[in-house]
């Protein structure tokens, strides 16, 4: 099976979706001639033409509103904002219009919004955010966070098929660093189904996105010390695979949630609340969260390292939890 980078998987997925369904089109800044700020859409303009790969003006509102309107008329836009940080410019379009349309009027809005997110390379406060948690709080939106090339492509296909607005958070720090096996043919991965990155008996670690790799390194350290950690990669946050987490907690009775987004009101808080509600009698220790501190993302490398959860942070939290 061919190995592709995370970026190639998304790129190939886009191309495959556009070939497969003529309703699919791409809309965003610099996606056409330039091939995308991160080169995800290279070659698509030449292949599909300027009315399927549309270079939009610098307007998140026009991009998201344009996607909403065209979706209402039966197309399947895959819109892109250049950085997830700029999603705040289009907040109103997403939250006020797209999210509420089906509830109020019964009309589906089958759009996908790709959002390159995440930090780790001194991008500073406005090019590094992981704002996915905020959107789990908006009924009507779906939130997807692939961590592997395989999942990136499969989840993109599902997002295109889904008749709801789907926010697809692709972690830009994984684009070229992570490679994996990705089938050439089309496949879908259902939303709300987690991937068990590794099974374990002593502690459950729930995470998503680039933090999956940090978790894996930390778990390796703990394994060497005789503690086995079960890592659950949620893959999607809205919906999320609560069943998988509850089953794991029933086994280990200890839960740690890890996310790159800031701590307060991050999605980890929701997971913790639901697990306590439904599995109180399974818990042998308090639920821990490891997340970024409640600050904007700093620029200098030393500060950023103190901000983004590191392997040592996760490993030490896991050790404490295991020993409790």
């Amino acid at each position: 099976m061919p190995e592709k980078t995370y970026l190639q998987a998304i790129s190939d997925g886009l191309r495959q979706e556009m070939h497969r369904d003529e309703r699919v089109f791409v809309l965003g800044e610099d996606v056409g001639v330039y091939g995308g700020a991160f080169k995800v859409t290279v070659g698509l303009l030449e292949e599909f033409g300027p009315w399927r790969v549309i270079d939009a003006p610098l307007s998140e509102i026009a991009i998201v509103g344009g996607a909403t309107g065209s979706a209402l008329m039966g197309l399947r836009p895959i819109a892109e904002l250049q950085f997830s940080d700029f999603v705040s410019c289009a907040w109103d379009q997403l939250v006020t219009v797209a999210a509420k349309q089906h509830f109020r009027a019964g009309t589906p809005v089958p759009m996908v919004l790709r959002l390159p997110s995440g930090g780790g390379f001194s991008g500073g406060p406005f090019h590094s955010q992981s704002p996915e948690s905020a959107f789990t709080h908006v009924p009507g939106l779906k939130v997807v966070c692939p961590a592997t090339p395989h999942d990136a492509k499969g989840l993109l296909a599902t997002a295109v098929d889904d008749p709801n607005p789907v926010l697809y958070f692709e972690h830009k720090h994984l684009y070229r660093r992570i490679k994996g096996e990705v089938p050439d043919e089309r496949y879908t991965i259902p939303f709300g189904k987690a991937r068990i990155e590794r099974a374990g008996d002593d502690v459950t670690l729930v995470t998503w996105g680039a933090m999956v790799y940090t978790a894996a390194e930390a778990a390796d350290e703990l394994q060497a010390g005789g503690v086995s950690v079960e890592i659950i990669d949620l893959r999607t946050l809205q919906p999320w695979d609560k069943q998988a987490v509850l089953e794991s907690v029933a086994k280990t009775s200890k839960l740690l949630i890890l996310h790159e987004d800031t701590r307060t009101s991050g999605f980890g808080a929701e997971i913790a609340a639901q697990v306590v509600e439904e599995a109180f009698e399974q818990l042998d220790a308090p639920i821990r969260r490891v997340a970024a501190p409640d600050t904007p993302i700093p620029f200098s490398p030393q500060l950023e390292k103190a901000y983004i959860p590191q392997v040592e942070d996760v490993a030490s939290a896991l050790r404490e939890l295991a020993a409790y």
Partner: protein
Amino acid sequence: MATQTQIEVVMPQMGVSVSEGTIVKWLKREGQRVLADEPLLEISTDKVDTEVPSPGDGILGSIVTLEGETVAVGTTIALITTGGEAPAEQESESTTTAPIPPASPEPVAALPADRAFVSPVVARIAAEHSVDLERVSGSGHGGRVTKKDVLAHIAAATTPVAAANEPLPAPVTSAPSSGDRLEPMSQMRRSIAEHMRRSLDTAAHATTVFEVDMSNVVAIRARLKPEFLERHAVRLTYLAFVARATVEALRNWPWLNAEIRGQEIVTHSYINLCIAVAVDGGKGLVVPAIRNAEGLNLLGMARAIQDVAERARSKQLTPEDVQGGTFTITNPGGHGSIVGTPIINQPQVAILDTEALVKRPVVISDEKGVDAISVRPIMNLCLSFDHRLIDGAYAVQFMAEIRRSLESWGEERY
């Protein structure tokens, strides 16, 4: 190897005005493993005589102050070494040693003065198995009992495979009389002893005995037995029939499948049927559960009984197998007994015992009311029940239903 730290055992202050205390008796020897909160020694002071619990887990490294000595409050009277490996057990009497200068003691996490924290899962498991957490050693933070600890405790208490972490108490020093044989109780024995005593102390035991005419069952069993063996490799026993009839009757008499928790009655919607299995040539007893027995037909029940019995005897049961039972059947009748007064398996409220199948003369009335003597295979069924929850009328109606069920077992019934 883990780093070793030393915990100081100090003479406690048993009252504001108390300034000293006297060692009455050391309950542990040097070199012996001690657990946090476990009684370590007895002291006497002006105010009160009391046991002093161990401040931590570890090995009692050295006893500084000997029995009979009086020291000021706060004096270090012993040292406990935490971490590292346990030294070999010592059979000799505790000996005095020169006080070892303590290595710079590392601060130990302060332990709660009262019982250590019980987490939700530990509380639940302990309640389900009537485990007294005071008796469980805790390996967790602050010496608390963790989920692993309580599960290990249950497994050790109910399976013959018990890793003895604790060294056995030193043998009594009085000389045995000639002809007496002295042996320590096995883990299983001690556990059974504790359970039986506790069961009698907990439940208000009453027993009722019913005679059941097993003619129909005998006939049907004769017919089905070869088929079960050839086609399914399952031995069909009378116990399987009784178990089926019992499970069906429990549907209509659900309190017999319940538990008393404090002031509440917890009635289970599922029936996890325990079967008592004798092991070790009659010197031991294991009671594994068949989960969701209500969903089994005769074949399924016979198969399940065969399976748990085999695994019990070959020591292949898992901790899950011996948890969560809701009703127990015991079958001593194979050896000829005709009446029993079984002891309830806590936290259940009833236990059924099947006695020997004996051919007896019985009086049969025909339709005209004319009596005649006939020989029938009769089996006595004895039900011990907890009279706190179950009254006699309830119990006997349950038994009457089982009897009817067995006596009218039809050809087509499975």
